[in-house]
């Protein structure tokens, strides 16, 4: 199925009245929409996260990933340059790199031994001139026209981004000023890998894109946040939206906690858990910055988020693996100049998030509950009116769904849905 515009859909699609405050459930389960997203979003004018620079530190290093469903290779060449290509041999379409990570001088397809340099140029064709004067490629075969399909690549703060589109502006202008400034705050120093794992969540990728922008749920569903005062809505905090609305930052300042009556009064699951930690070392933390922000999550359209919870710094990357399946990668990092104690604290606080995160494990199932709950209701829509109906930054409160409205504003535009 290859679609390029909403007009190609068999079942016409228009956005319900109410704009970004209404989220058509069909978008979570319609295979045609999913196919259209591959073209318009992942192959469109966005910067896709490919890998971290520390995944490919040395000349010849490569790492495979996917942009939407398209397999790609990111490489570092002999001069330190970073490249990205579709992981598909220009001959018969086989995967060129089979390993997730590796180091090579040339990338060679095992099927017929066609080989490519680290920038994707075709350098060798086995038996190009045939054998004993017979067979081989025609004389006019132009190897320079048969390299791997390349992506434009830019790195920013240790993140490697790629795009299929010539129209995507530079990463920095794609992000906009507030987003790039905050990324520099969090990832602006040489990074050190701490560990990675992934999680299969049984929901459409956009449910997770909403979930990371949902500052409203974070302290209702995630009891641990609330109880141990890591992140609550009665701390100073806010939401910053990018100019295009589709990226966001949500932040909280732990020191400003001023217990709100609403948590005590209302029947909030998250406020019912009364506990002291038997292992209080879990929450030993130091202030990394002097801006008072102790918890933040920043989402970059389409499928990247950077989390800084106390001292736990993690790059989350969520990849569509089908209409109702998403692989969520957790790349935990520290800084190269961290002391041993600091590394130990980051490792300790790793317990808060990830597939077994004391705070975040609910997100492994909550999006699936929406996926299942909306089956059979494809003609209906979800609501996002918390904090009003506008799509603006909110420096007063995070009891808002403005960042979710921001996601859908950007989504609707890039998908071209009237």
């Amino acid at each position, binding site marked *: 199925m290859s679609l390029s515009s909403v007009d190609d859909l068999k079942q016409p699609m228009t956005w319900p009245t109410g704009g970004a405050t209404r989220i058509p459930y069909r978008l979570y389960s319609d295979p045609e929409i999913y196919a259209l997203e591959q073209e318009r979003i992942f192959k469109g004018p966005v910067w896709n996260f490919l890998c971290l620079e520390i995944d490919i530190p040395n000349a010849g290093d490569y790492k495979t990933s996917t942009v939407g469903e398209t397999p790609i290779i990111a490489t570092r060449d002999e001069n330190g340059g970073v490249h990205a290509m579709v992981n598909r041999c220009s001959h018969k379409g086989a995967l060129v790199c089979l390993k997730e990570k590796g180091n090579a001088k040339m990338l060679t397809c095992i099927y017929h031994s066609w080989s490519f340099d680290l920038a994707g140029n075709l350098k060798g064709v086995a038996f190009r001139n045939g054998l004993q004067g017979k067979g081989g490629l025609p004389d006019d075969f132009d190897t320079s026209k048969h390299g791997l399909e390349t992506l434009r690549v830019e790195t920013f703060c240790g993140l490697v981004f790629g795009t299929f589109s010539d129209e995507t502006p530079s990463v920095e202008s794609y992000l906009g000023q507030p987003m790039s400034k905050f990324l520099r705050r969090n990832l602006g120093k040489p990074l050190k*890998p*701490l*560990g*990675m*794992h*992934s*999680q*299969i*969540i*049984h929901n459409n990728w956009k449910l997770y894109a909403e979930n990371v922008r949902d500052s409203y749920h974070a302290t209702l*569903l995630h*009891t*641990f946040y609330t*109880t141990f005062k890591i992140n609550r809505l009665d701390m100073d905090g806010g939401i910053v939206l990018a100019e295009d609305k589709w990226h966001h930052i949500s932040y909280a300042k732990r020191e400003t906690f001023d217990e709100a009556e609403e948590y005590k009064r209302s029947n909030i*699951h998250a406020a019912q*858990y009364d*506990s002291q*930690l*038997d*292992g*209080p*070392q*879990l929450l030993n933390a130091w202030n990394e910055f002097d801006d008072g922000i102790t918890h933040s999550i920043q989402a970059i359209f389409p499928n990247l988020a950077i989390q800084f919870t106390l001292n736990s710094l993690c790059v989350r990357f969520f990849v569509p693996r089908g209409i109702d399946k998403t*692989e969520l990668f957790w790349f*935990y990092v520290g800084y190269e100049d961290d002391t041993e104690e600091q*590394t130990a604290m*980051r*490792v*300790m606080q*790793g*317990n808060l998030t*990830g*597939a*077994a995160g*004391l705070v975040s*494990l*609910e997100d*492994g*199932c*909550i999006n*699936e509950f929406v996926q299942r709950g909306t089956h059979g209701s494809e003609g209906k829509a979800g609501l996002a009116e918390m904090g009003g109906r506008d799509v603006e930054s909110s420096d007063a409160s995070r009891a808002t769904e403005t960042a979710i409205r921001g996601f859908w504003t950007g989504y609707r535009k890039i998908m071209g849905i009237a």
Partner: protein
Amino acid sequence: MNTAIEDFIIAYAHDIDDVRLDGWPDYFTEDGTYTILTRENLAAGLPMGIMYCQGRGMMSDRIKAMKEANIYEAHTYCHLLGRSQIEENSDGSYQARTNFNIIRTMQDGASEMFAVGKYLDVIEMRDGQPQPQPLFKERKVVLESRRVDILLVYPL
């Protein structure tokens, strides 16, 4: 001694399968460590796993959060263990390696392989009657896969 250790390792698994988790921290020494990590991260020498408990206190926090704070769909585990390979260390403690396969059953009836890997244990023998009592000084749960389905809340 090997039989006592094997019985201990089996009892641990059965307690989790039967959801008797309050006593889970008591399988460890007071300062024992429990780590779930991936084969890949272990091989790369990376320090971070999927779960890490340092001492019984952190283990009880896990159980308490699991029972009272965390939200997830009901499920149970069934551990299938291979025979343990046990060796004595020079300090009198023991090392054990045991392969496991854990089947998870969800409330809709799906029974599927959830985790496969090996336990790498350091076991201390404590005085006891009628025989010495093994305790985990260190239990590393090494998963073959880096990928967890849905979420991980019960200890493995």
